[in-house]
């Protein structure tokens, strides 16, 4: 035990020495704000990036979009690159939290899909505020041992067959959007809130429990608590490949919730030059293919990157199916009044769930 501790201590000291030396050799650094474990902080990629450019990358993390906005507001000039969900890009730009990107410096930009590149949330007054990075779908996944064939309808979540066997995420916006899809409404501007309320209340006998993280989802699924549960496309592929869970992700015929994450440059970034380089590195097909193959990633906004994946890969097989993807409704910006209304509706529904 002591011996092992001694060796660890020596190793740590050596690592610290290397880190110190490295810091002296490369004074240049950039600061990135993102979800933890979401691509930008993969160590093998950062090592290569600093070999190439001499820039070391420092990370800070957030756990919700609101927290990300709060961090940008309270620490101006502290970050270079920030990951922002497209539904929040406009708000960040309006509040003056991010600055326009010099698109000429992003050499891989022309390989991204035009629909995402020209997303109305990314281009404001002719200026580009975000570069499309990855996208995915929020829908549901089924435990294939509980199903003879994979369902095609979102109504499966409401089927009495699965009473007390459905996993649901405790997130107001997501819950309301699922109900909007099931009642045939626009997820960004639902008009019939009474129908949504009814639909959410009808979930009462269905829900086993709420899940809050990918890790928890995997645990509940492997403990056989769920027949089916709402989930994210990228996570479903990780559950399947990395954890070996018998799950299948479903994009229902009624539709699904789509999200697009963009990379932006924070206002008054200390190192805008390095920020441009890093964004370009992140949408490079080389990085993406390695990320998806070794770790599991959402779908890339770069068409060349997706084409570089093996044909059997989840992102090519499921999200490459244009017929399925055409049913996906992408999340747009949401004003505070609607957000507040959705939150109240969900809390009221959760209260109704109590006996």
């Amino acid at each position, binding site marked *: 035990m002591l011996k092992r501790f001694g060796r660890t201590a020596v190793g740590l000291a050596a690592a610290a020495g290397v880190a110190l030396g490295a810091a002296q050799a490369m004074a240049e650094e950039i600061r990135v704000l993102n979800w933890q474990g979401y691509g930008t902080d993969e160590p093998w990629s950062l090592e290569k990036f600093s070999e190439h450019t001499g820039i070391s990358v420092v990370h800070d993390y957030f756990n919700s979009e609101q927290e990300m906005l*709060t961090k940008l*507001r309270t620490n101006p000039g502290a970050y270079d690159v920030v990951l922002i969900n497209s539904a929040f890009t406009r708000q960040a730009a309006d509040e003056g939290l991010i600055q326009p990107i010099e698109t000429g410096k992003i050499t891989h930009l022309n390989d991204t899909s035009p629909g995402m590149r020209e997303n109305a949330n990314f281009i404001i007054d002719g200026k580009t505020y975000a570069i499309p990075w990855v996208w995915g779908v929020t829908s549901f996944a089924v435990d294939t041992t509980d199903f003879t064939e994979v369902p095609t309808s979102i109504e499966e979540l409401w089927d009495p067959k699965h009473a007390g066997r459905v996993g649901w995420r405790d*997130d107001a916006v997501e819950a309301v959007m699922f109900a909007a899809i099931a009642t045939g409404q626009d997820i960004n501007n639902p008009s019939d809130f009474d129908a949504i309320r009814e639909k959410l209340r009808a979930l009462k006998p269905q829900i086993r429990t709420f899940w809050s993280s990918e890790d928890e989802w995997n645990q509940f699924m492997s403990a*056989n608590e769920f027949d089916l549960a709402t989930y994210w496309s990228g996570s479903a592929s990780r559950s399947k490949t990395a954890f070996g869970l018998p799950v299948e992700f479903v994009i229902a015929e009624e539709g699904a919730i789509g999200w697009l994450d963009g990379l932006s440059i924070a206002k008054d970034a200390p190192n805008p030059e390095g920020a441009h380089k890093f964004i370009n590195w992140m949408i490079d097909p080389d990085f993406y293919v390695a990320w998806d193959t070794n770790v599991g990633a959402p779908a890339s906004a770069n068409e060349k990157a997706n084409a570089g994946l093996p044909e059997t890969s989840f992102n090519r097989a499921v999200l490459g199916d244009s017929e399925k993807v055409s049913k996906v409704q992408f999340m747009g910006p949401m004003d505070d009044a609607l957000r507040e209304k959705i*939150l109240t509706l969900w*809390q*009221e529904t959760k*209260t109704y*769930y109590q*006996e």
Partner: protein
Amino acid sequence: MAAVTETGAAHRRRAQRLTIFAMTGPAYLWLALTIFLPLSAMAYFSFLTDAPFGNKQAFLTLENYRAFFQEDFYRTLMLRSFRLGAEVTFYCFLFGFPCALVLAKTIRGRWREALFLLVILPFWSNALVRIFSWTMVLRGNGVLETLVNWILPGTGPLNLMFSYPAIIVGLVHSYIPYMILTCYLSLQAIDDSLIEAARSLGAGRLTVLRRLILPLAMPGIFAGAVLIFVPVVGSFMEPRILGGRNGTFIGTIIEDQFTAVFNWPLGAALSFIMLGIVLMILLIASPALRRMR
């Protein structure tokens, strides 16, 4: 001679006052810094339209307090939380008081120390670890279900996880040491000769318990009840993990406001409303309790 003693006494009094000040001052300063300051910041937040971070404008408003009275579900959840607090306190008393009585009056010496250790042991483990270990016991195919089915084959699934009883079980386990410790202290202070006198005057065991032990132990029971009731009403971690779909309480809604939605003002307002109701309950209960003593 008399004058000399008097100044000596005055001097001693002043020295004593200084000592008291020196001994309690740091504690009060610490309390002021750690409780009063953050709490008043939260009180201020509860009257704002927005959390005052960055260059977002915030205005003074009563809207957050009005929200509580406008939406029925806040009141439903508040009532549910108070019911949870009352039930957990009741079960803690039901199981904790006999345990304290046995510890104080029957068991002596080394055994008492060993049993005390068992009572305090849960305090030494992290609250989150305690609750997660309950999930291993209560969940489907978990320890309890396997055990029951082993003793009584064919019982089938118990379905205890993600239910209201599961929350009660977890919370009672977490808070019962408070009840045992406070009851133990007041029970131990009861003079044994009082009980002997009662017995020799012909009082039965139940009469002794009802007329003598319970009234004398009341301060301990009351202290334990307050220590349990107040935090349980605001609890959020245990309901969230053990309650599943049935785990929405005012505490979890307040937590949502702070961690998920970042509506600090509404979260603060709900907390202060809860605090107000708790204080009111204590205020109403205290004269009745004083009379009992």
